[in-house]
């Protein structure tokens, strides 16, 4: 990947301007100069609070991604492979899907209480949809001749799905998985900010309420870095694993 030097001009200019502006303005309860943010970041990193919060957030996000992803994947394969089932459940899915994930937070709060389970449940709900919809489309779009091959080989339905359909749809399923991973992190942080007292979202809320803008902004920068790194990692994995196939799958 070629990096254009011009890409760094804008962020550097913004950081310098923020530093000058914040220093000229004097101490504030809501914003802080980048140098103070960097200091607060190093402090939170060295006392371990940042790493513990990151672990909590990522653990919940990945657990939710696994649960929701598994549900979405199996439903997607079933609905894509059996058109009658898809037609039967279409109305139910179309009416459930628009319910925003955060709207379920209060229900999960009453049923599960604060903690990991609440967050995992909400993340799982949010991750079901990208995998369900994209897997369904990918499975329904599998080259018909491959299905004919499976028939000719007299594969039973399970073997047909495991040996033919899923491998053929795999590049597009991985794209869905990548999108769902991004969703998982966003939803995990959102749940933490809204109600759940663990993880990065709770950390940034606490820093804001404690009137420590430098720590709050350090958390914000860190959350941005984590999101960026996760996305970059998954894009890299996708290119390594599937190469051009994944790019073709993403095109439509």
């Amino acid at each position, binding site marked *: 990947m070629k990096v254009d030097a011009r890409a760094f001009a804008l962020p550097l200019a913004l950081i310098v301007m923020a530093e000058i502006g914040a220093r000229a303005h004097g101490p504030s309860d809501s914003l802080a100069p980048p140098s103070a943010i960097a200091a607060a970041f190093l402090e939170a990193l060295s006392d371990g609070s940042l790493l513990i919060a990151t672990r909590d957030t990522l653990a919940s996000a990945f657990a939710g991604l696994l649960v929701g992803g598994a549900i979405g994947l199996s439903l997607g394969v079933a609905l894509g492979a059996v058109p009658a089932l898809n037609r039967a459940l279409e109305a139910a899915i179309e009416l459930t899907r628009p319910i925003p994930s955060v709207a379920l937070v209060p229900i999960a709060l009453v049923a599960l209480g604060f903690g990991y389970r609440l967050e995992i449940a909400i993340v799982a709900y949010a991750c079901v949809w990208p995998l369900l919809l994209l897997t369904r489309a990918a499975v329904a779009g599998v080259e018909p001749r491959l299905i004919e091959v499976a028939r000719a080989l007299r594969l039973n339905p399970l073997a047909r799905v495991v040996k033919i359909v899923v491998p053929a749809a795999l590049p597009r399923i991985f794209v869905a998985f990548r999108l769902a991973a991004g969703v998982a992190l966003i939803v995990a*942080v959102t749940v933490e900010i*809204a109600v759940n007292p663990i993880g990065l979202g709770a950390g940034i809320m606490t820093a804001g309420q404690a009137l420590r803008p430098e720590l709050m902004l350090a958390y914000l920068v860190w*959350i941005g870095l984590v999101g960026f790194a996760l996305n970059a990692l998954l894009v890299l994995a996708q290119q390594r694993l599937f190469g051009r196939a994944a790019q073709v799958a993403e095109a439509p």
Partner: protein
Amino acid sequence: MRSLRDRLLGVVVLALLVALWQIVANLKLVSPVYLPGPDRAFTALVHGLAASDLGAKLMGTIEHMIEGWLLASIAGIALGALIGASSQARAFIAPTLEFLRPLPASAIIPVAIAVFGLSPAMALGVIAFGAIWPMLLATIHGFAAVEPRLYEVAAALRLSRPAVIFKIALPSALPDILAGLRLGLTVALILAVVCEMIAGLNGLGNWVLLSARMFRSADLFAGVILLGAVGFVGALALNIAERRLLAWRAP
């Protein structure tokens, strides 16, 4: 198009699922503290709209969502057109935007609270910031992906720069922009709910959280059903708009 029979089948299955929900609730397989039956949820919905302030909460949420979304759409498309129209600007600005995009928009809520306080302005800022990315990036991408020969045609016709933007680049970017608008509306609804929960603003987010705190599960479900309805109607409206606006494209 799907046939009438398929639609009927979908509705029947939906009715069966609701009936199953009712049976589960009636048999108290799940504690009624968490799970009211559809009958109780529906009664709470009707009662809330007729006698309580559920209607006002609904309007509050729709207002937050639409205001933030409109602001984000206008700013996103305008900024996207400015950035996308110049390859210089793209080289300088686009990488920073790509870096900011995966940032969970809700993470700026504490910052917005520190700057604006627990006010509607805070919600507007957060929703607009969160919902701007799909529109902004879609517009930049749409402008960058215009068929080069169209620009040659524009040069041959000696079109002015605004004319190129409005007659060639924007229509060509329209499919991307519409997809961005749809995604932005979803984000706007989610952020509206979160802001209402945190800042106690008038809206369904506040309603569902308070209902949960008071263990009034029927009211809670009524709020969630309404939120689903808002999301559904919003997506439907944009789908219809998309079909109208893109009617000129080959299907």
